């Protein structure tokens, strides 16, 4: 019996997962050895290469299938739901780091300064310390530093990301209205803005390390600052690469006004990255 149009699509066996798992294993083992002071750069790179290769080939396969019309509405919906809940899990990942930031600011630092039921923590252990934000802790870990002001590069980056949120929406509407030219232009704009953001972020890091003595080792401020912005930056990078990929696909004529899961998935992801940035801007830079 051939596949009827609305029958469920069951793929045959796939070899990508085992390759991906092997890659991840090599990558993590390599990085672990490296962290322990061994020399495993090549191994780690090989592992990472394998993972990237696997993703490339796996996605190509899915894209081919999608473009050849193998998928039906139900599969499309499964993909969407999958993407949605994946993003939810990412939200929870960022929530931990925000949680750490709030905990440090609202609880740990005041306690170290002797507040609440920690009178003696302050008076016996850290008599010199007064709790304030930003802080690198009672032992002035990492030495004096300046915090990152909100209204320079970060504000500019906020504008950039917000704009990119608009451009991708325009592109989305263009896709739905079959205006392929507009689509290509605005999608290109979006990922260019994304890469611009990453560039400026790099600039900001250099500034922090060179001029402000603000580093990953600058106590709890440095820790939360770099972890939050760093993981966000990583996600922007991934998002921008995904945007680039769907842009190339658009140029090749992929996606229809009705079926364009990949486009939507990337757009959701991009909005998610955007919203996280707003949180960062408010809680890390501004307040």
């Amino acid at each position, binding site marked *: 019996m051939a596949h009827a149009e609305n029958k469920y699509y069951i793929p045959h066996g796939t070899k990508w997962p085992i390759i991906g798992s092997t890659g991840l294993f090599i990558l993590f083992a390599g990085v672990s050895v490296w962290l322990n002071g061994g020399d495993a750069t090549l191994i780690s790179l090989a592992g990472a290469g394998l993972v990237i290769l696997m993703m490339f080939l796996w996605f190509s396969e899915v894209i081919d299938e999608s473009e050849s019309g193998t998928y039906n509405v139900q599969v499309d919906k499964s993909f969407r739901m999958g993407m949605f809940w994946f993003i939810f899990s990412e939200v929870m990942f960022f929530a931990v780091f925000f949680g750490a930031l709030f905990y440090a600011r609202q609880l740990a630092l005041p*306690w*170290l300064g002797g507040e609440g*039921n*920690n*009178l*003696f*923590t302050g008076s*016996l*252990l850290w008599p010199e310390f007064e709790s304030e934000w930003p802080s690198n802790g*009672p032992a002035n870990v990492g030495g004096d530093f300046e915090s990152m002001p909100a209204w320079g590069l970060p504000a500019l980056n906020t504008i950039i990301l917000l704009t990119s949120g608009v451009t991708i929406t325009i592109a989305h509407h263009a896709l739905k209205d079959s205006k392929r030219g507009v689509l290509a232009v605005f999608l290109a704009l979006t990922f260019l803005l994304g890469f611009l953001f990453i560039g400026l972020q790099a600039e900001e890091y250099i500034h922090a390390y060179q001029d402000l003595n603000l580093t990953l080792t600058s106590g709890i401020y440095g820790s939360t600052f770099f972890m939050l912005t760093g993981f966000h930056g990583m996600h922007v990078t991934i998002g921008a690469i995904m945007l680039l990929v769907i842009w190339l696909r658009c140029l090749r004529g992929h996606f229809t006004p009705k079926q364009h899961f990949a486009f939507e998935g990337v757009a959701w992801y991009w909005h998610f990255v955007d919203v996280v940035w707003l949180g960062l801007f408010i809680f890390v830079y501004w307040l």
Partner: protein
Amino acid sequence: MQKINWLSRYGAALLVGLLGGNVLQAQERSSLNMPVGVTDVSQKVFDLHMLILWICVVIAVVVFTAMIYCMVKFRKSQGAVPSGPSHSTLAEIIWTVIPVLILVSMAVPAARTLVEIEDTRDTEMTVKITGYQWKWHYEYLDEDVGFFSSLAADSNAARQLGSSIDPATVENYLLDVDNPLVVPTNTRIRYLITSNDVLHAWWMPDFAVKKDAIPGFINEGWFEVNEPGVYRGQCAELCGKDHGFMPIVVEALPPADYRAWLASQKGAI
């Protein structure tokens, strides 16, 4: 055979231990139940423990009786045919509301005890306890007295892998130290606790005190010992390889004896 012996021995001991728990004297420690301890707080905690234990036992008896009844009464092999209902709103309301009431009856005394434990005001003296891998340091604030307290030498010898010393021959095996913490009885004592390296926890069952030692922070609490004696406990937070070998011993002396001890300590320095 051996096992059966144990079962009968402990079956009986179990009943005595649980039923008679309330009347156990402080010094004769049950090997089945929580010690009543020698502070007002430990007494309250013990009572609370017995209360919730009994509530659970009673609920268990009711619930298990119902289950066993079903298992005996409604057997297919006895020709039972399924006829019971598959829902009953009334029943469901009842078994939601009753547990809530039971829980409230536990929460109220628990909250009261908790408030009392956490009230660290009006203490008469302060000791600072610091955890180290793997010993304790005690410091009498404002008295200029302080010392380390580690596992007693005979226990330490016996506990080595392949020592071939029978632990049963060592008095207070693993529960003895070189320098116990000495405190006066009938005195409200504040303890401050912190750590020098990793987490530890200071656990003295007879006082119902357990508090974590956290590097960089100081936790506080209090106890007031009613009866002179030697009390034993252990570190209660995993702190590395010798976590099992950092006991706590507190010697409670009548205030006069305590003052004499304190004076001798000051002389020693």
